[in-house]
């Protein structure tokens, strides 16, 4: 075999023009948020996060957004892209409708601090309120054995990365503002149905609150929004059933 024959032909990654409409807000200057458009050339392998990087690094360094891992693990970059909550780092631009601009806004229902950055404190407070840690009376001297079936019971809700995509897609959270929200219930579910945990009743009592599970109206926005594919609405329904039973 000759050398030329084996030289792989690397095709050029296709590029395309795209307009990004970003919801910008600088509390020191603006009285309210406004849309700003950016014309970019992006590639088939690029995600919305890459477009935001391109703007920040090459066009306007003042653009503010959160991101850390850039690979769908840390949960920092949930935002509203074309009206749907997604992780910017898991949304390929080529998969969006490119016949019109791509609209990027902060997630709804939490106060905007700057551009795409919102105040996550109320979200984390609801998370803290459901006691998101193992509560067991025995001393942790040896491994706490659990059967595969018992582990499977709450497997789905262990996948949460606390990105807030679900909670900020929930219309009850938008209007009510005090509702615990899907993410807190998902993380309560993770412990309520863990056979090693002993405080299911405590968490069920917390979520029987006026602003607890009963505020859920089963709209499925949360399930659709979750970048981890967690069956969020189902988890909430299971917690409701557990509250009715009075135990996990």
């Amino acid at each position, binding site marked *: 075999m000759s050398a030329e024959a084996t030289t792989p032909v690397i095709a050029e990654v296709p590029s395309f023009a795209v307009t990004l409409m970003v919801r910008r807000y600088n509390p020191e200057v603006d009285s309210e948020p406004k849309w700003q458009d950016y014309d970019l050339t992006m590639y088939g392998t690029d995600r919305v996060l890459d477009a935001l990087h391109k703007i920040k690094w090459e066009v306007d360094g003042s653009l503010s957004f959160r991101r850390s891992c850039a690979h769908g693990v840390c949960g920092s970059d949930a935002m509203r892209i074309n009206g749907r909550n997604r992780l910017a780092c898991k949304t390929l631009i080529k998969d969006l409708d490119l016949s019109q601009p791509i609209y990027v806004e902060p997630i709804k229902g939490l106060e905007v601090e700057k551009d795409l950055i919102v105040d996550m404190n*109320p979200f*984390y*407070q609801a998370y803290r*309120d459901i006691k998101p840690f193992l509560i067991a009376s025995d001393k942790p001297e040896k491994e706490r054995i659990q059967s595969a079936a018992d582990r499977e019971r709450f497997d789905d809700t262990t996948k949460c990365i606390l990105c807030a995509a679900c909670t900020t897609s929930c219309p009850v959270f938008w209007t009510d503002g005090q509702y615990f929200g899907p993410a807190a219930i998902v993380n309560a579910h993770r412990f309520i149905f863990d056979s090693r945990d002993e405080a299911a009743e405590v968490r069920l009592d917390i979520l029987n609150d*006026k602003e607890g599970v*009963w505020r859920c*109206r089963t709209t499925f926005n949360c399930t659709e929004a979750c970048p981890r594919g967690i069956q969020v609405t189902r988890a909430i329904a299971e917690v409701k059933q557990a509250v009715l039973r009075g135990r996990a």
Partner: protein
Amino acid sequence: MEIVIETPNSPRKRKGANWEKYGWMYMRISGAVLIVLIFGHLIVNLWDKGVGAIDFAFVAGKWTNPFWQVWDVLMLWLALIHGTNGMRTITNDYAEKEWVRKTLNITLWVVCGALIILGTLVATTFDPCIDPNAVNYLPTVCK
């Protein structure tokens, strides 16, 4: 060193009796019963001759039968409490000021109570032979 996680302002503090669990159960139980009552009601009233057949005599005739009196009173109570509780949920969603929320919710329950009392009164004390001079408009039991 003790690590203290400071608590940011958390607004979850609505006090008072918490009936939300029972409200949630009521919506589902009443909903299931209402499916039977409402569709039964619609079929019996409309199926054969359509809406044109419903007149004073038709309604009065139905209410001479305790079965339909119970049916209609049950439908009245279940649907009004169901609808009012549903509206209360929506008020709690959208009312931002506490006094607005309270005022709307109290109004809802007052209206609901008044309608239930009036409706129950009418359905249970109804006189089908109300006007002996208008025999043509009365149900057959009066003739």
